[in-house]
């Protein structure tokens, strides 16, 4: 009986630890990524920042596809950022200003791969007014629903 109870407790504790979201500072990842873009070393370091799935859409020999590695450059100045985590993914939303002073929001989804939290999907929202800045983290796949709600 004691063995059964301790086994059950172990299973419950293990279950909780698996479901508990990992505490990661996604903004730190994002900052390193934007630095790599600014220093023009994102291409050779792409595997440190993007998932394999994401990189399948990037052809290093095709200038047009390199935009996918550089979407963060639309945010010239950052205004605010928010993040949320669950067990499977993390989402980071950045409110900012473009070089020409228009407001912009960038939403980034991260997934854990080979022990690293890497970019798996992005949504760049060229918003019309700073009143449209998000006030909480939105996952990129949910942004379209908020636009057309």
């Amino acid at each position: 009986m004691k063995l059964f109870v301790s086994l059950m407790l172990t299973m419950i504790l293990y279950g909780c630890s698996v479901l508990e979201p990992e505490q990661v500072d996604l903004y730190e990842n994002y900052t390193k990524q934007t630095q790599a873009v600014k220093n023009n070393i994102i291409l050779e370091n792409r595997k440190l920042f993007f998932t394999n799935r994401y990189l399948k859409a990037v052809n290093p020999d095709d200038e047009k596809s390199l935009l996918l590695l550089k979407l963060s450059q639309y945010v010239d100045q950052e205004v605010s950022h928010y993040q949320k985590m669950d067990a499977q993914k993390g989402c980071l939303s950045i409110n900012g200003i473009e070089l020409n002073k228009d407001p912009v929001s960038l939403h980034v989804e991260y997934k854990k791969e080979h022990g690293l939290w890497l970019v798996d999907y992005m949504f760049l929202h060229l918003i019309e007014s700073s009143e449209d800045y998000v006030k909480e983290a939105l996952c990129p796949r949910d942004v379209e629903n908020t636009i057309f709600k």
Partner: protein
Amino acid sequence: MSPTRTELRITIAKLIEVAYSENKGVTAKIVRAKGPFKLTVDQGGNAQLSSQLGVVTFSGSDTLEKIGANIKSVSVSFSNTDGAITKYTAIIDLKVAKIAVSGSFNIEALITSCSGILCSAAKALKERHHAYDMELQRIMENK
């Protein structure tokens, strides 16, 4: 070179212009009527302008070719609520990322902008025509 929001807006205007040159009657009927209409372009460049009033199909390849991105598809939702100003939201799908841009424009200004020699010259050249682009920018940014 990353496409700017102005370039994306001009691209939407050009797609409507191409639809208009393909079928003036149905395009004008769709865009002038109050209510929603939609513009889509798939990965093969097949474009479609549609509403309850009809459908115009055309090629969007040349227009999208000028954007500095590999585009999987484009979907633009328009809403003409008062018969004059049309609001739109475009979603550009880049397969693992999307770009959204919104705006509003005067549809009459757009469909009459492409009737002169300037537009013919721009089409004949099949490349960027600065004055024509500036005119489309003015219309699409409702200035």
